[in-house]
């Protein structure tokens, strides 16, 4: 319990750092957002007036404090280009991105762990050599390319789904999931390869350890030696790796959203980057960071539960 509290505290400290870095780096950019908004034709007076209206004439620290207070209450300020509160702008986009990420994570776990176990049990057979080679290849396929291949195979040739035919989870959650399965697989594929390979390697390493011999000496069947002794030990390094993979998956979903035209945070982030809409960029980066740190926290706690040797 104390461990969990300390981890949660660390999480908020990290987020605080991220918020400082993000906010201040965007304030350091030369050129006034007010000028960007009004165009080069604007008079100095009108720029000044707009800056005042946007609160840009206040000191950076004061603006940061105000922004942070807002963020804590769920208010990320106002978008420069849409004239709307950022929160309203990204609320339902966040849902799509989160649903996609969670599905990708779920697929990664559900496929890679049985696959890794299967590969370990078949180790040194032809099938294992084939799967290992196949894994190596899959790891080299970037998710946006596998996304295009999936679109081509399942969308264009087999017509299992309509490319670009995203249905909002508000309309129908089931149909939304039915569509998101494809991008989620594209994101999950390289991770599945990595995790299953890692699990196979750790199972092989654990199988040679002394406690496995002890387990056999007590009359355990091979199956119980594997499921009661080896597997959980082998999963410990896998959990650590999954923690890092989750961060990649959340970041990766931004790219794959584009492949499948999912109206998530990816699209609005990209348009805000080209439109220099800083409040939106800041909000999205901070939110993504929050989910990355949160997933790391969950993994840390899981890890703690699995491995009693960790007491720090």
């Amino acid at each position: 319990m104390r461990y969990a509290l300390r981890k949660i505290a660390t999480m908020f400290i990290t987020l605080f750092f991220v918020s400082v870095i993000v906010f201040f780096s965007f304030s350091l950019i030369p050129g006034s957002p007010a000028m960007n908004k009004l165009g080069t034709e604007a008079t100095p007076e009108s720029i000044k007036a707009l800056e005042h209206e946007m609160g840009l004439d206040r000191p950076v620290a004061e603006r940061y404090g105000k922004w942070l207070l807002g963020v804590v209450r769920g208010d990320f300020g106002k978008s420069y280009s849409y004239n709307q509160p950022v929160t309203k702008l990204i609320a339902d986009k966040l849902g799509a991105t989160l649903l996609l990420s969670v599905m990708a994570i779920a697929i990664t776990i559900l496929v890679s762990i049985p696959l890794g176990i299967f590969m370990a049990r078949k180790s040194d057979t032809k099938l294992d050599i084939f799967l290992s080679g196949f894994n190596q290849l899959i790891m080299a396929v970037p998710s946006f390319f596998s996304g295009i291949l999936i679109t081509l195979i399942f969308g264009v040739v087999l017509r299992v789904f309509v490319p670009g035919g995203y249905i909002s989870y508000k309309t129908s959650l089931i149909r939304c999931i039915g569509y998101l399965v494809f991008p989620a697989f594209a994101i999950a594929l390289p991770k599945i390869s990595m995790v299953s390979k890692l699990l196979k390697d750790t199972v092989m390493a654990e199988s040679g350890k002394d406690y496995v011999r002890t387990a056999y000496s007590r009359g355990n069947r091979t199956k119980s030696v594997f499921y009661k002794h080896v597997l959980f030990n082998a999963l410990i390094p896998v959990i650590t790796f999954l923690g890092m993979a989750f961060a990649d998956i959340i970041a990766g979903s931004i790219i794959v959203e584009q492949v499948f035209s999912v109206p998530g945070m990816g699209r609005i982030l990209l348009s805000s980057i080209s439109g220099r809409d800083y409040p939106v960029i800041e909000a999205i980066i901070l939110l993504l960071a929050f989910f990355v740190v949160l997933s790391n926290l969950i993994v840390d706690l899981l890890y703690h539960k699995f491995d009693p040797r960790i007491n720090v």
Partner: protein
Amino acid sequence: MDKSKKSKFITGLVITGIIVLLTLWGMIKTPYDPYAMDSGAKFAKVSFSHFFGCDQFGRDVFSRVLIGIRETMFIAASVVFIGVFFGTILGMITGYFGGWLDEILMRFNDAMLAFPSILLALVIIGIFGPGKYQLIAALGIAFIPSFARVVRGEVLKIRNLDYVLSVKLYGASDLRILVVHILPNLKTVLLSTVIIGFNNAVLAEAGMSYLGIGVQPPEPSLGRMLSEAQAYIYTSPMSAIFPGLVIVLMILGFSLLGDTVGKKH
């Protein structure tokens, strides 16, 4: 080196060799002008005159892929160079001198590492704006922390080796020890990190260009070609498949080499 490792190494070497040859080809001359549009050759099929066919403007895909490989290699090399250069300096200073500077930089480093590098690069692009050189800077900066960490760990080990301690006794300056005695010892660990870094850079560049915030049109880039071809996936899927396959080959080759050249601990 056992048998499977050897065959992995050779496969990696062959694939990387092909990529290097294609890069050189792209540097010297391409079969067609990669920018020349030819409405007659619109969506031309794969043939001897157009190895990879033509795109929606009738541009020769193979020539564009050659330029794309060249660009990707250039960007990835620059990114790795920035990462290695600053990462090594940072890692050497913090690892060798330790103290509060080390503390602060490493805490900062940890915070950066907790962040996926793509996300970090997106923040920096957000600040600099989209473009090829902005992309190099963004990815380069995003890569510094991981290099710094590897170098720092190695310097910590080397710094306490007997011979470094004895050189110090003879009155060698810190700078001399760092440059003459420690730097050459970083070679092996840097080699595998550079290969892995190069791989990540290729992947990140392709991803960013795919998103349209990397290399800007009309300049061809592998990632950009993918996103452009995607719009015509019903009529001409090959224009998307070839650039994609080239990206896969680049990453596969480097990762096979990276797996076999010096194990990362």
